[in-house]
């Protein structure tokens, strides 16, 4: 089945607003990537070396990562050869197919995991300034709107003002925040939060943590300890370890994903700041090399600027220009 049609069918089933929101946030991303591909396709009629070279550039400029790009290009070349594709217009379908094939292999994995019998605990980790606290604020609001009771643990006891920041978010969404003094042991805060959450029988406890660069051994050990405390106090938890990645980040995001996975067993990625011009192509590389699914995306600093990640929508967002062009040419026929 034609890939575009498949996606389109799926999308039309979705609520308009979600799609619009997604598209709105991704507008720049989509425009720059898709329009580049389109320009390419227009400029080159024939599938040749030069075309592939430029395609390579388009993907590299989206932070997909050189290794992944080179592999993809090889794959595309193979496809072009076996299917005997000569026109770039035709290859366009293949490009989309290959890219989204990487992202959509396990779609159900893009959903957050909740504990079916009891409290759900999320641990949120990542390097400095990526948007952990903001994401937690947005997520708390989202879950509360879904009718869940939520509690937050102010596990960033290091950064100046971090506790206050989480408290503001707690007020915004009307959820309780468990905190200690700045400078105290994050594992102790999380422990207290666990006890409080259990006794108050909340549905979801989200633990914030201080940002840390993945090469800092001590800090990574500290994080491991936090996770151990959660697992010890609540067997089966945390139900999600969410790694927050800034879409503006380049290849280092891969190293982040690797190291944080090693320390805490990351179960999902939150890709923030997709409302900028950063392309978020790193998602492809991470999915490809580490097979960690993206679960949420951040599209702004507002409380509603959080969306669950849907690979089909993501690809649709990236390539909707291609889709509309497809429709046009259909109409002309």
């Amino acid at each position, binding site marked *: 089945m034609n890939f575009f049609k498949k996606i389109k069918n799926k999308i039309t089933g979705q609520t308009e607003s979600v799609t619009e929101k997604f598209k709105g946030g991704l507008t*720049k991303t989509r425009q720059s990537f898709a329009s580049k591909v389109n320009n390419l396709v227009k400029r080159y009629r024939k599938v040749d070396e030069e075309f592939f070279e430029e395609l390579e*550039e388009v993907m*590299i*400029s*989206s*932070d997909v*990562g*050189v*290794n992944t790009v080179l592999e993809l290009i090889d794959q595309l070349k193979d496809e072009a050869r076996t299917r005997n594709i000569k026109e770039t217009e035709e290859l366009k379908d293949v490009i989309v197919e290959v890219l989204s094939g990487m992202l959509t292999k396990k779609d159900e994995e893009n959903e957050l995991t909740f504990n079916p019998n009891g409290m759900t605990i999320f641990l949120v980790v990542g*390097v*400095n*300034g*990526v*948007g952990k606290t903001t994401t937690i*604020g947005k997520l708390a609001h989202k879950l509360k709107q879904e009718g869940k009771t939520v509690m937050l643990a102010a596990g960033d006891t*290091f*950064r*100046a*003002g*971090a506790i*206050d*920041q989480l*408290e*503001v*978010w707690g007020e915004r969404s009307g959820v309780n925040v468990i905190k200690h003094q*700045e400078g105290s042991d994050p594992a102790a805060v999380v422990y207290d939060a666990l006890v409080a959450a259990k006794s108050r029988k909340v549905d979801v406890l989200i633990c914030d943590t201080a940002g840390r*660069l*993945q*090469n*800092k051994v001590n800090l990574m050990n500290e994080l491991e300890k936090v996770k151990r405390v959660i697992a010890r106090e609540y067997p089966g938890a945390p139900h999600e370890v969410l790694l927050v990645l*800034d879409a*503006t*980040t*380049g*290849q*280092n*995001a*891969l*190293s982040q994903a690797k190291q944080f996975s090693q320390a805490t067993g990351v179960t999902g990625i939150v890709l923030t*700041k997709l*409302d*900028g*011009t*950063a*392309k978020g192509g*790193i998602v492809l590389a991470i999915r490809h*090399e580490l097979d960690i699914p993206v679960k949420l995306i951040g599209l702004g*600093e507002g409380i509603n600027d959080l969306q669950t990640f849907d690979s089909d929508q993501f690809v649709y967002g990236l390539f909707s220009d291609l889709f509309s062009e497809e429709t046009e040419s259909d109409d002309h026929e």
Partner: protein
Amino acid sequence: MAFEGLSDRLQETIKKIRGKGKVSEADVKQMTREVRLALLEADVNFKVVKDFINRVKERAIGQEVLKSLTPGQQVIKIVQDELAGLMGGEQSKIQFSPKPPTVIMLVGLQGAGKTTTTGKLANYIRKANNKNPLLVAADVYRPAAIKQLQTLGGQLSMPVFTMGDKESPVTIAKEAIKKAKEDHHDIVFIDTAGRLHVDDTLMEELEEIKAVTDPNEIFLVVDAMTGQDAVNVAESFNERLNITGAILTKLDGDTRGGAALSVKAVTGTPIKFVGMGEKLDALEPFHPERMASRILGMGDVLSLIEKAQANVDAEKAKEMEKKLRTMSFTFDDFLEQIGQVRNMGPLEDLLAMMPGAGKLKGLKDAKIDDKKIGQIEAIIRSMTPLEKSDPDIISASRKKRIALGSGTTIQDVNRLLKQFKDMKKMMKQFMGNTKGKKRKNPFNLPFM
């Protein structure tokens, strides 16, 4: 592997083209391909990479190869030179206003490190230039941003000007300058809110702050982990504000930091400082050469090459390399090596500079304390020629004699003998002499 350094990448190529007298076009093509990949992996923007590679090609093709270098090394050297040139010289000086207060404005994307850097920079300049700073909390959007700056101000015992989050940042900035004059602050640091470079309203706000405060410096704070988008960000901020420089944060991480090159290339303004941690003293002047090596991921291999060039006679080095390879390396050779290497600076630095050396087991044990090098020389000089060429014959009584002769202890002698043994073992590893199969010296440095 995604994060191989250029030196690792180039090993293969270097091996293939070593020993030629001239750098051929084909060599350069192959080398620059690797350089291109290395730069892209380091997040240098692809357009910047393209320009850069073209320049390297132009310079490299047909060039005479320096006697002590292989063609491969020669190309790396050109790459490094070009890179250092692009990065510019060291420029961590601040433009102070002849009429105080000096105004410094920090701008950038969300989470880049503006607020932290505001504290660090004020701390740095207060110390270095004996100034009396006022910090200005002009981020009224991010929750608790004011509190964050106040906390930092408290830690530094530095006043923070705030009007809460109900006034506009433009008003706050304007009032802050007034206040600074009143209270005789000779320098003002304005911490602005993070914003997307495509956010027209908020970018306009920065232009207004600039208009009312007339800053002497506008620093773009850039996360060192930024990818390809760094050029768009830097371009937009520069277009709207004419930034005077950049500060690269979070360089204490393991990112290559190619964004540094992108930012420099598109704005033409210097990178002045780098953030090396979360603490308030973790700010350093920017070192272009160090950054160039870091981006290429090759330790300081280039400075090593330069040093080797200057200090080691290439012919002698070749002989030594042969000896090492055949393992006929003796204490006499060791002595000579020490002499040569000594001219090149601290031994540990040299070891640290060698790409891949960190990965080698046994290197740690074989490491030689630079300060004890004189002692080592004395011990070796107290050995007989036979002992020097065949240390295995050094018995307990011989050790005693050597210790006496060199004014050291038997333990010192023992330690050196062990070190020598370890070193030979290590050399063997370097040479890849295992199973009788000879691999080329992977480092191919003249003194090895």
